[in-house]
């Protein structure tokens, strides 16, 4: 029989609770927030501590502390008289050690703690916290993608079986942290998500003209195939000719001239495109993601673009995925409300934390 693991009992508090505990010497707390985990707790073990912490938005600036209390605390703690079976009193004296979840929090609260006689300890749960917040953020993002796809009448992620090896969760991680590659052998979708900023940079001067569609597709061929699509004389002439004509045309829905040039590019470089990444979708992806990241997305334009795409296609699934992940869950909800009511003035980018 293996030795039972040595346990520690941990409670996660938000900064308001922790500051009150320091200032008043005690706070009321629901007993089940005290979680026993092994002393060599894994990230998964610590998830149980974080999941019962009192906050509603993982990405918000709510500061969190993990307190270690004696293992018998749930039995010995004083009960609150109105709900003795549920609510206990956590006294400052009960706490064995106080750990902020990040080093930044440590620096910020060190002096506040000292002024109340509390010596903050190292932020030893930081890695577990980061891992937990990332996994919760991914779950949130996928929920918002599903909501957006439902509202736009687009196939949902669960209905799409990816032909490559990627899971949608991996792609969310990549979209949120483009500098952390998710697989050693990049496929089209990975190149697109991690290369959006590069593409946006290359076509920066064309964002307000119709040449934007073609510019994005040209840069995409270069990025994906590492080939200069303008190298061949006939292609160069056709593309330059079209780019010249479209340079002063304001960006709107793609004209027949744009569509024809994009088709020429797709036919000339078939390996650069897939069912979900068409020549036209590159521009949409670049526009959506950069606009969402820089808080300049206009719902009416996004809706207009979705309407121009075949809704049952894989392209629309990927675009809605990228849009929802870039917007984050609250803004996706706003976007859905704005598009449902056709009241496009409603987007408010300044969200409460």
């Amino acid at each position, binding site marked *: 029989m293996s030795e039972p693991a040595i346990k520690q009992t941990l409670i996660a508090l938000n900064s308001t609770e922790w500051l009150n505990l320091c200032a008043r010497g005690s706070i009321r707390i629901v007993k089940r927030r005290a979680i026993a985990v092994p002393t060599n707790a894994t990230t998964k073990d610590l998830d149980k501590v974080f999941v019962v912490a009192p906050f509603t938005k993982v990405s918000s600036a709510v500061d969190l502390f993990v307190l270690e209390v004696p293992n018998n605390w749930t039995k010995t703690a004083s009960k609150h008289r109105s709900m003795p079976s549920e609510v206990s009193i956590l006294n400052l004296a009960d706490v064995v050690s106080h750990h902020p979840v990040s080093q930044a929090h440590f620096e910020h609260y060190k002096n506040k703690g000292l002024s109340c006689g509390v010596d903050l300890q190292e932020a030893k749960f930081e890695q577990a916290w980061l891992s937990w917040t990332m996994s919760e953020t991914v779950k949130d993002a996928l929920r918002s993608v599903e909501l957006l796809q439902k509202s736009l009448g687009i196939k949902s992620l669960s209905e799409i079986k990816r032909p490559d090896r990627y899971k949608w969760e991996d792609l969310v991680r990549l979209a949120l942290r483009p500098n952390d590659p998710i697989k050693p052998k990049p496929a089209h979708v990975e190149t697109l998500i991690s290369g959006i900023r590069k593409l946006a940079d290359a076509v920066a*001067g*064309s964002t307000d003209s119709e*040449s*934007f569609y073609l510019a994005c597709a040209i840069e995409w061929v*270069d990025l994906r195939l590492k080939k200069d699509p303008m190298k061949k004389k006939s292609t160069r002439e056709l593309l330059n000719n079209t780019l010249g004509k479209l340079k002063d045309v304001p960006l709107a829905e793609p004209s027949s001239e744009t569509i024809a040039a994009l088709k020429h590019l797709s036919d000339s470089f078939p390996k650069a495109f897939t069912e979900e990444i068409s020549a036209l979708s590159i521009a949409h992806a670049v526009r959506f993601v950069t606009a969402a990241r820089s808080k300049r997305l206009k719902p009416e334009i996004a809706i207009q673009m979705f309407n121009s795409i075949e809704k049952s296609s894989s392209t629309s699934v990927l675009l809605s995925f990228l849009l929802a992940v870039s917007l984050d869950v609250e803004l996706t909800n706003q976007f859905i409300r704005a598009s449902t009511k056709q009241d496009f*003035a409603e987007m408010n980018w*300044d969200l409460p934390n």
Partner: protein
Amino acid sequence: MKWMVPINDLDAVQMRAIESIIDNQDRNHWVKGFAGSGKTVVLTHVLERLATSDQPIRVCFATFTHALKDLVESGLSDIAKKRIDISTFNGLKNLRNDYDLVVADEMQDIPSRQLPILAKKSDVLVIAADFDQSIYRSACSTAELNAAVKPAKEHQLREIHRINDNIFEIATSVYTDAYIVSQTTVRQDEEQARIYTAVSARDEFTTMYQEALRVSAKERPSAILLPSKALLDKFIAIIASENSYSGTPPSVKNDDRPEIGGPADPFKEINSYLKKNRSNLQVFGGGSGSLYDSDTKKMVYLMTYHSAKGLDFANVFLPHLTSDVSLEPMKGSSDDQERRIFFVASTRARERLYLSYHDEPHRFIEEIPEELLQTFHKQKRNY
């Protein structure tokens, strides 16, 4: 130039500040906040509300430069424009002395001698001032300004809307004394400032101009900021020669004096020269140049650091950050003042920030942590 933020898009703290000022028109107010936190936006909404209320009061608005005066005016409705007297600090002396309320922006740079003039205009002052952005040596001291508006209700803005976290880090790594209030939030995106090491001044100016033109778009102009008018001349001469402009470019009249009020169109000649050569470049400042030109075409504005005060641009270029250059052209400038000038210049960028130098880099570049800057590479194609 669309810069005004609609009332519905303001953050909660900005809204509270506006409501509080409107509800307390009998006392002084001081709107505070980091560069890009929306102080001017708050003041403009206050002006609009005061001028269009059922019982409009006599209001005057004053600010430092002609450009800022025009900018605020463009954010007001036609009715408000008619009802409010709008002026630079220099022009205040010509206005009446019986306003119910005076709203003043960029007050950290108001010269001491103009404080008594301002005080005569009204008993009530609503001001915005951030001493981290004070770049003129003639500016009043903190104590003088405190005395002029005391007692004032303070409104501390906490959300930085204009710049992203990367530019925030760069600006505060050079000007480490910048006051950052608790719970300050700043936008996070992937955008990172670029650094270009050129082989010569010609290479530097030409490359930065080409890039400024490439990334500019309608309503998203680029601005190239240089420390002195002598460098503006040098820049224009190089661009004119590289692009084979016809004729010799007129000088921007280097007198090494930042424009305060000044003549209405000091760069008329040079701008007319650039226009004749169908250049996208325009010299801006002291009443010259129009930001509204960028509404209809790609524009690259060239100006001194001082002329960029209070403004913002999609793309900001700070070339010529070489070791022998002082960012403050006036003699006897302090290190602290140079740092504030860099702080103000770098925080003008809404989207992209470019720094460049040739020969040895300026000490400020060396102080910026390497991971905050990415090396600039020219793009293969230009659309």
